[in-house]
């Protein structure tokens, strides 16, 4: 592919680095020194200039680009750059934004701003945090279909309620599918009467909520539930989205925000959250509110320094798990070295999401399991391909490839696959397949 990346900050550089080996990449940055520096770091063509100007975009040959990724630090710049790119060519445009407002606008109108795919940094970071909070027992979690579907892998530990059950007994959830079991390094395609044993690794695919519920079944000790204390510090966009998503997963978080107006707004918009208006660095307040007894503290203030301070305070008070939002990627390791459990960097998260999406649009979204024994793929079905118009049971019977369909999304809604489900063109199918057969399956789509 020919990819033009606009903005050579942390996000743009990281994306360009992942794509440079297999694709032709051109990076545009407004800072000439940065562009010059990048020339020797990455095997890409660099152009110094304003990525929103059509002159610069023409120089970058946007007209022949397969993909244009606008990931500067400024929302409006990214949107304008995508709009400009659409006037010059018909490459797939991806915009990074911070504002969820823009995301809502874009979701509301097909192709708004000339953006084909929008990644909202703050929302993505919040989703990441919630995934980390909700599924500590999972060995591996990957989102598919834009977050509508999750794949998770759990190790069945000694004393887990599902150990000894059959798959049909364990699979009590409407929108969840058991797709694979790994036992002693071998993959088993599970059927209703397959037994689940201690030490197995179970792979499930389904809606995030059902995966969360299943996690509670598998590892009730480790998985947080409503009874767990979760405190979010800082009502930034990331803090707000985190609390909102936690509410959706049936948690009852508390949120601390210093600014009175913002706290009021948050309280109005988060019905199931206890919002407290105070300075979170006040140790006396933390002790009074028993933050030390919290199971999980998330620090999502706008300053890395304050997040660090509060994370350390929380750790000292004896909080089990502290998750910190760290804006500067360089500090991530520092945070983790001084004992903060997880440091989430919005830029890294964004870059990973965009990179994954670019792979997805080229081949398919992929998660690799158990030393590449099996892969989970997301395929978009095209009109007239070998899978469309047939019920799943028939496809499985006809094919000698071992695969399991875990979830289907149709018009951005989740469809739980059953034997009689008939696949349609435009469906996104998330399935688990043995690694040797990936190309066979991909060629059927």
């Amino acid at each position, binding site marked *: 592919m*020919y990819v033009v990346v606009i903005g050579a900050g942390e996000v743009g550089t990281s994306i360009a680095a992942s794509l*440079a080996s297999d694709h*032709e*990449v*051109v990076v545009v940055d407004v800072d000439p020194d940065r562009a*010059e520096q990048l*020339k*020797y*770091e*990455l*095997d*890409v*063509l*660099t152009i110094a200039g304003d990525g929103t100007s059509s002159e610069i975009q023409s120089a970058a040959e946007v007209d022949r680009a397969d993909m244009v990724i606008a990931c500067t630090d400024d929302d409006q710049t990214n949107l304008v750059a995508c709009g400009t790119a659409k006037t010059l060519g018909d490459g797939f445009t991806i915009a990074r934004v911070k504002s969820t407002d823009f995301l809502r606008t874009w979701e509301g109108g097909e192709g708004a701003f000339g953006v084909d795919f929008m990644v909202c940094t703050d929302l993505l970071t919040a989703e990441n945090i919630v995934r980390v909070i909700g599924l500590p027992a999972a060995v591996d979690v990957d989102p598919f279909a834009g977050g509508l579907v999750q794949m998770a892998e759990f190790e069945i530990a000694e004393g887990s309620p599902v150990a000894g059950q059959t798959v049909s007994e364990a699979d009590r959830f409407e929108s969840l599918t058991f797709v694979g079991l790994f036992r002693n390094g071998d993959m088993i395609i599970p059927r209703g009467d397959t037994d689940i044993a201690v030490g197995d690794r179970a792979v499930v695919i389904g809606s995030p909520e059902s995966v969360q519920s299943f996690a509670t079944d598998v590892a009730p000790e480790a998985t947080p539930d409503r009874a767990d204390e979760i405190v979010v510090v800082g009502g930034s966009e990331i803090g707000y989205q985190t609390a909102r998503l936690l509410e959706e997963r049936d948690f009852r978080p508390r949120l601390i925000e210093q600014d009175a107006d913002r706290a009021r707004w948050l309280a109005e918009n988060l019905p199931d959250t206890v919002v407290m208006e105070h300075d979170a660095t006040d140790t006396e307040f933390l002790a009074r509110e028993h933050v030390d007894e919290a199971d999980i503290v998330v620090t999502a203030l706008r300053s890395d320094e304050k997040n660090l301070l509060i994370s350390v305070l929380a750790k000292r008070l004896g909080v089990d798990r502290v998750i910190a939002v760290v804006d500067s990627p360089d500090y991530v390791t520092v945070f983790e070295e001084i004992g903060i459990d997880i440091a989430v960097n919005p830029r890294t998260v964004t870059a990973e999401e965009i990179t994954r999406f670019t792979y997805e649009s080229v081949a398919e979204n992929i998660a690799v399991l158990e030393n590449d024994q099996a892969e989970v793929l997301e395929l978009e079905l095209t009109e007239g391909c070998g899978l469309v118009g047939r019920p799943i049971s028939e496809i499985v019977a006809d094919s000698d490839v071992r695969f399991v369909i875990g979830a289907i999304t149709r018009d951005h809604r989740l469809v739980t696959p059953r034997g009689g489900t008939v696949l349609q063109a435009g469906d996104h199918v998330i399935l688990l397949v043995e690694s040797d057969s990936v190309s066979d399956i991909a060629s059927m789509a």
Partner: protein
Amino acid sequence: MSTSIRVGWRASVGLTGDVLAALPVPLAFPLLLAFYYGESPVPFLAAIAVSLALGAAFRSTRDPAEDLGPREAFLAVALIWFLVAAVGAIPFVVAGVGTVAHPVNAMFESMSGLTTTGATVLRDFSVHSRSVMMWRQVIQWLGGLGILILATAVLSEIGVGGAQLMESESQTQDVNKLTPKISRTAQLIWGIYFGLTGLAIAVYFLLGLAVDPQMDLYNAVAHAFTSVATAGFSPEPLSVGAFHPLIQWAVVPFMVIGSTSFVLIYFAINGEPMRLLRNEEFHFYLGAMGTLASIVAVSLFLDPSTGFGAEATVRHAVFNVASIVTTTGYASTDYVLWAPAAKHMLFMGMFVGGMVGSTTCSIKSLRWLVALKSFRRNLYTAIHPESVRPVRISGKSIEEGAIRDIYAYLLLSIVIFFLLAVVIVVDAERAGLRVSEFEALGAAATTFLNIGPAFGDAGPYGTFATFPLSTRAVMVVLMWIGRIEIIPVLVLFTKAFWTS
């Protein structure tokens, strides 16, 4: 506390190993020729064995954790140029014929070849096998564009490090990435080089068929290798002077194209000829060549002793000036016999050099152009102290830092050149030889600026074998330093390079 080495030398040495391990490919060409002519293949087999062994040894020291940064690139550039020349000297030593059987002479010949200097220590051309004579030409062709551009084009593992290497190999400008992939860019540049070489072979061969049987396929290939590379070796003792005048005329455009920026040639081929034709450096370079050629032609006309006709006068003036300015070093006649005025014009021409981004050596036109323009600006600001006037080349303003670098480079070159001239004179005196000041200056310029022939005994039809051995050893180092533009070697002698 001991200071530890802060250079990732393993990365440099590993890369050197990669390049050495690839040397059997060019060595295969003279090897096949040796079989074809029924000559001894041993010289080349020996060189292949050494390059494979050294390559493997060097590659085994590699530490994958080390990156190729600017420092490592300098070290790699210096090492690669020196060691490739050393391996290139092996066939001469093993063949054991003539002056180049001596290791220092062999190294001189090989370094002179690789750096596209074209100064030779051979006395008698006829004693050498055809395959060994062809190896001289092949080395020059390899060194023409720079080994590292070649390495970047063919060794995939270099990756983006190639940008750093190409930058270190020529100090003159930033690497122009024509395409997103540096290796692809290098391949395009090499593609042009290849194409031009092929074209030269065809032109020389066809002209040979038409007018001069001496220009057979062997000579066509041999001269194509060293004209586009602006290198200057010739298997003929009389150089290009051995051929029909028409062929001499045909060589001129190839030397000129060879010292034109390959980036601009690429654009010209791809439908943007104006970028080349409107380029100020190109104008300056052609202008300098034209002016010098005119003065030389007038000088030859006024000098009855040369006895050329009108066509020959113009031809010899144009040919030899082009040969010197492009840093090729062919000769169409023995210009040592010319009047001093003509010779001094050629001496001046040695310092010009062709364009940046070509196969040329010497100072290069761009540096002179920038220096002259910035000097003109200094005169203006002497009158208008408040004026802000960027120095522009082809409409693009040059950064002040780059101008300072160019001044520094010019000064450094001149200092080294004079020191070398002094070494040559003193060393000759020590050995009881008579070398005139002008001959010493010429020999210093021609080796350090990678041109080839000088004046006096080291003239186009002479040999460097008359200089003392110690002088030749110094010249080997100077050719090496000159070709990679001084800096990569000089930094190796700073403490900061190794420890800070």
